[in-house]
């Protein structure tokens, strides 16, 4: 009875085949892949950068530095009838996250149930945000006086919720995506 050919790898052990395929030991490969926590931190960092980049035009118009005091920035923008620019940051963030979520849903083969639920609700919500955001921006663009305080507060709550959902969706993507190591066969 002929012996097993081991897939053409001769008498090599599994570890030997692994080393020959990946060019490193098993443990080294595990360490080389960025963990989920790091990927989530990186994605959150990029998200935060996007928020500040989005706020830059309105800060520049108000002669202010990008700041974490977002409520004061909103009130200052409203006083100069620039709230529409501030408001549109949420729409841009949602649009970017919409693409990321859609790509993740299409790209990942087997999503866990919680991620499926998260992404479906998120996509439904994003449709609404895009609809409301664009119509509200058009409305704000025609207003030359500051928005009334109750409406301003409602819009700020809306923005806060929308931005929080985008962050949670981005974290959901980080927790579900699978990054395959690049396989470089040893020559």
């Amino acid at each position, binding site marked *: 009875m002929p012996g097993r050919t081991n897939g053409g790898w001769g008498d090599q052990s599994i570890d030997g085949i692994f080393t020959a395929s990946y060019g490193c030991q098993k443990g080294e490969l595990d360490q080389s892949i960025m963990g989920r926590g790091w990927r989530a931190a990186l994605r959150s960092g990029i998200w935060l950068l996007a928020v500040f980049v989005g706020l830059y035009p309105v800060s520049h118009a108000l002669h202010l530095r990008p700041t974490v005091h977002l409520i004061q920035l909103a009130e200052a923008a409203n006083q100069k009838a620039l709230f529409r620019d501030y408001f549109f940051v949420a729409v841009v963030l949602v649009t970017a996250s919409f693409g990321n979520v859609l790509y993740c849903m299409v790209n990942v083969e087997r999503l866990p149930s919680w991620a499926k639920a998260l992404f479906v*609700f998120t996509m439904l919500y994003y449709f609404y945000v895009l609809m409301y955001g664009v119509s509200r921006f058009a409305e704000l663009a025609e207003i030359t006086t500051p928005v009334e305080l109750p*409406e301003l507060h409602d819009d700020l709550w809306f923005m806060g919720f929308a931005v929080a959902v985008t962050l*949670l969706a981005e974290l959901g993507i980080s927790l579900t995506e699978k990054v395959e190591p690049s396989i470089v066969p040893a020559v």
Partner: protein
Amino acid sequence: MNEFTDLILSPAAAKFISGFFAGVVVSIYALRFGLPAKTRIAIRERVRAASGAVRHAVHWHGHA
């Protein structure tokens, strides 16, 4: 129809709808990461059993 559109595209409705969806998203995270695995599996089994019962009822209703 126009009044309904004006209603759902008002800032107050946007706040309410956004709050609802944010609550749903936070609840999903809480169910996934805030509960012990045993409780989570028990809830999942109950949901599956309920959805199976509904599917069964719909199937037999369709044949009636």
